[in-house]
């Protein structure tokens, strides 16, 4: 069920390209900054429905967009060479995906054409004859089932491990609210000395709070810091 649901979502590169093309924009750094908000909005809509593992990949793309956005907003911001190459990498991937997109349509048409070949079953018409394999004994069956269980268990463990980033978003929401309550109202202050992933999660938390109108944010002019404050509707018992 849940895996099926997952498949309804396109990958982040596809989604980002979609957003750019909706606005009939070229793939440039400036235009990427332009669609950042849309991408984040989409990302937020995913947080309820999607596997944390997939979400993490969207966050990676979102983080690069935020980097681009920050660069556009804050011209004095110095990016490391790694960050610069991350931006370049995202642009290149989008371009490559864009070039490939027509092939997906071609493939889809062929796939749905109902123009297929039929083959025959394995040794059709030959009677089944008992041919036990030399290696089909109790021991090897036992080993095979044990190995399969080990694998299936490792899969479910892996899924559990990845649940943690989701909880963090909730924590960060609380953190922002607390910071505002003690009087820190500038986003730059809130994210001071945080790791890059934390900044991203904090930013997501900020967007979350904005959407729920728990806080108000304001950017007085381009490139200036974002000022956040509690909005009237926030109630401690809501969260």
């Amino acid at each position, binding site marked *: 069920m849940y895996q099926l649901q997952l498949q309804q979502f396109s990958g982040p590169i596809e989604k980002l390209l979609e957003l750019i093309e909706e606005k009939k924009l070229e793939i440039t750094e400036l235009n990427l900054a332009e669609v950042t908000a849309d991408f984040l909005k989409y990302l937020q809509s995913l947080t309820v429905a999607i596997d944390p593992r997939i979400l993490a990949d969207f966050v990676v793309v979102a983080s690069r967009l935020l980097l681009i956005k920050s660069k556009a907003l804050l011209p004095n911001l110095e990016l490391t060479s790694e960050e610069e190459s991350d931006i370049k990498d995202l642009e290149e991937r989008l371009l490559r995906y864009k070039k490939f997109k027509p092939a997906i349509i071609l493939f889809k048409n062929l796939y749905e054409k109902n123009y297929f070949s039929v083959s025959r079953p394995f040794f059709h018409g030959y009677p089944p004859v008992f041919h*036990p394999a030399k290696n089909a004994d109790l021991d090897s069956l036992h080993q095979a089932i044990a190995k399969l269980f080990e694998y299936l268990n490792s899969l479910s463990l892996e899924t559990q491990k990845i649940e943690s980033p989701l909880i963090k978003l909730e924590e960060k929401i609380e953190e922002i609210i607390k910071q505002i309550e003690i009087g820190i109202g500038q986003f730059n202050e809130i994210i001071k000395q945080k790791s890059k992933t934390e900044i991203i999660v904090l930013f997501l938390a900020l967007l979350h709070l904005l959407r729920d109108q728990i806080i108000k944010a304001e950017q007085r002019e381009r490139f200036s810091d974002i000022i956040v404050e509690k909005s009237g509707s926030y109630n401690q018992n809501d969260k």
Partner: protein
Amino acid sequence: MTNKIQNITAAVEAILFAYGEPLTIKKIAKILDLEEEKIKSALNDLEEKLKYENRGLKLVFADEKVQLTTKPEFSSLLENFAKEEFKEELTPAGLETLSIIAYFGPISKAKIDYFRGVNSAFILRALLMRGLIDRSDKSKEEYAYSLSFDALKHLGISKIEELPEYEKYKNNLNLVQ
């Protein structure tokens, strides 16, 4: 549909190939939406073409039915081939599938695919041909696969519960689902 069919001989060959079983001329005529006479002449044409020495197939007529089969001169070659094929050891994928059926049978193909994470159609067919598993149509929609009686004997056990750690795996099935 029919007007798209350019060549009746080719269409008849394709139909006989896919169905595998003997078909009545009437049935072929129905599939093609053509008169039986047309089918008969296409079958004659096909039969003539199959006589060429570079063809490996032939038509067999019996009881008003026709079937496409291999030429008799290849019978012993193909029987040996089948024998060799089934003498081979089971692949890891074959063993894995057999173990799932042993421990969890009767079990549907969908469930086997789910556990293995890959499609098992071919492996199931091969295990059936080797007589290691049986297929029963438990529900109308789905076959259920279980270990064959011969396979149990070959393993040297009298019932499935004698498989090593049978209870442990059988009961833990839900944990991994």
